[in-house]
């Protein structure tokens, strides 16, 4: 009788254990566990942490960045990197803002701004594929070019856009029931792109290219076309984020989005993307950006000085990259 009990107990325990190792065995699982742990700890430390208001703020803070993270993830998968996302995001904002102030319909202005950011992506893609520069240098140059253009367009001071029509402000400020509209846009983009990254044949070609570009060429993949496409995608998503921010804040600020490349690259790497290319998932990267946001928000709730925030984020990135490195080393040796 008691023997029976222990057997049963054991099996329950072992299935629990199995579930645990299964969850841990994929990157997203580990991240979810870490996020849960942070939440549990925080709910003890701060009564405000587990409130709807706080969570709404956290979600809002990472959902627009999350859109940029999607592009960055694909960029890392193909083995590239895009340092210009913050500047391109700001450029879209400033272009749309300037056009609106010149009397253009805000929707048309936004579409033109999106086209401009896509165009920047295409030009960067051209330099990478046709001229043969590396992503790092090309996007570094365009970080400067795009940021400079923002200052030129705005003459260095923020454009105030309080006259934006309510219908346009709805993108960044409206909500559907209790859910801010931004979060809905974000969820749609994330769910769709996560699905595409996992399943679509075009994304498979991106993985092949990132894994071994030469072998991809020798598998009949039009590597340059794919690289160009990814560059356009990454910049366009940054542009979209810029439009959303403009609608949310009712302003276009030339210094906005500085350091966004660091946040998005960190998020993707924490989520399992590899700087060597060939690896990464949208879900992982989004969990990465969520973790960074939750930590930032926790530090604020705990009254830690803002000066500490970048330091802590840096440490988390270092930790994530080290874990990744050891996992790879183990895989090679095992």
């Amino acid at each position, binding site marked *: 009788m008691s023997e029976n009990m222990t057997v049963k107990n054991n099996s329950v325990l072992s299935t629990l254990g199995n579930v645990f190792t299964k969850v841990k065995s994929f990157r997203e699982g580990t991240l979810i566990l870490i996020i849960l742990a942070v939440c549990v700890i925080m709910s003890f430390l701060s009564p405000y942490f587990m409130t709807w208001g706080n969570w709404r703020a956290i979600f809002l803070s990472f959902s627009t960045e999350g859109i940029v993270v999607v592009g960055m993830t694909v960029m890392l998968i193909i083995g590239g990197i895009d340092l210009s996302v913050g500047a391109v995001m700001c450029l879209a904002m400033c272009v749309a803002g300037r056009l609106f102030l010149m009397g253009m319909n805000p929707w048309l202005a936004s579409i033109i701004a999106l086209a401009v950011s896509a165009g920047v992506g295409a030009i960067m893609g051209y330099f990478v594929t046709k001229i043969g520069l590396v992503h790092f240098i090309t996007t570094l140059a365009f970080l400067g070019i795009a940021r400079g253009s923002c200052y030129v367009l705005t003459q260095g001071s923020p454009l105030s856009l309080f006259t934006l029509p309510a219908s346009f402000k709805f993108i960044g400020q409206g909500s559907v029931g209790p859910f801010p509209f931004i979060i809905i846009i974000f969820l749609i983009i994330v769910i769709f792109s996560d699905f595409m990254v996992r399943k*679509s*044949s075009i994304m498979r070609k991106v*993985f*092949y290219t990132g894994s*071994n570009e030469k072998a*991809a*060429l020798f598998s*009949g993949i*039009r590597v340059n076309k794919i690289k160009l496409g990814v560059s356009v995608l990454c910049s366009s998503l940054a542009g979209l984020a810029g439009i959303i921010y403009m609608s949310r804040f009712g302003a276009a600020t030339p210094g906005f989005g500085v350091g966004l490349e660091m946040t998005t690259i960190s998020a993707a790497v924490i989520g399992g993307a590899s700087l060597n290319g060939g690896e990464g998932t949208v879900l992982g990267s989004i969990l990465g950006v969520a973790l960074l946001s939750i930590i930032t928000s926790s530090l604020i709730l705990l009254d830690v000085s803002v000066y500490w925030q970048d330091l802590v984020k840096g440490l988390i990135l270092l930790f994530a990259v080290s874990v990744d490195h050891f996992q790879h080393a183990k895989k090679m040796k095992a």
Partner: protein
Amino acid sequence: MSSEVVLAVQGIVKDFPGTRALDGVDLDLHKGEILALVGENGAGKSTLMNIIDGVLQPNEGKIRINGEEVVLHTPLDAQRYGIGFVHQEIALCQHVSVAENIFMAELNTSKKSLVNYNDLYKRAAEILAPLGAVDPKKRVNELSISNQQIVEIAKALSLDCKILILDEPTAALTESETDALFKIMQDLKAKGISIIYISHRMAEIFSQCDRVSILRDGVYCGSLNIAETDSKEVVSKMVGREITNLYPPKFQGDCTKEEELLRVQGFTDGFRFNDISFTLHQGEILGFSGLIGAGRSEVMKAICGLHPKIGGSVAFAGEQISISHYEDAIQRGIVYLTEDRKVEGVFLDLSIRKNISALKIDQVSTNGLVDRHKENGLSDEYAAKLNIKCASTTHDVSSLSGGNQQKVLLAKLLSIRPKVIILDEPTRGIDVGAKSEIHKLIRNLANEGIGIIMISSELPELIGLSDRVLVMHEGDSCGIICGDDINEKKIIHMASGLEKVGV
């Protein structure tokens, strides 16, 4: 040969996830002998050598050097005990000069903070001289694969080692380079250095080695003195069955009367090859011979849109086609197997399945989405067809032995049911048994009406399989031979530019 044992491994066990690569292996190496190590693809040869070199750690077992038990944590430890290792896969720094690659270990441990490059180049040239003409100042990525292999060997020789391990060094070498290597091996042996030599070529083993040790499926199957055995015995011990080395029967009749699949005319790239023309017919195996560097691979790549050309036309099944990108060729069913497996061939960190389906991902997709069932089904079918030795096709290709990686590439080509297959060194690194299987497979494909072009530096293979052979010399065609003309003497004669036929 003295019987002093310089290296002894005992009871080595090595487990990888899902497989036991080595299961209690023993091996003795005597002073001043050349010991051949043979076994099928995936038998565990490279794994054992990686353990002796400290790259991998065994799960069980002991290593003794000169009778003293040692633990080798890293290749640096192994170096200190005088072990030099030429890996199966070329592992050089691609963007660094030949000389710096050769002396990497020395530069690494040197106390000096400045490098005397003139001295470095001079010493590199000295080591390279007996092996072949390689410029020590060139960057490695500018070299042909055979020259890269030479640099690998020179790198090991520079270490002044007591035990030298050569893992399939000749798979990528030309004949003259191979001969040079053998001469060096005999010199080293005379100096009392012991060599472990891994190869799938029985002829080399019987001409160069003193003893042969046999591995089968990770189990040690004994050692034989070369003088007291023959290749039949060795092969049957390592494969566990008899291998008939007979090539399948060639095309009956005149294959040029069959329907024309490919007509290549006046191919020129103004650099590596010049005015190459030939036809390929249904059911034909057309061999391409020539010394390495004769431009054979470049012609094939140009046909597939993988190498630029400045003149020439291709007709496919009677219709003029233009191929600007390899994808166009694949769509028509023309596929190319690269000779550079590691750089241009496999996606090392992707699964076997994803590697096999890479050539035509649309084939296993519906509405732009990859259909996992289709992909798995197709990949598993071809993995089984080619007998790829793996625990599961979900594992990364990097976990496969060299020969099995080669089979993955073959599976990838066949999975799209091509009409014209261009094979560049198709059996490089493949074991004796699998090799004759692949020869049969190639002939069967031809019999199904597929046209096959095969580049091979192994003359017996080329002669045994080809219905016709086009010989190239320094980028020019020396003509096409068929029937009894396909023999070693004639091909070598033509390949060295001494004779031309019909052009």
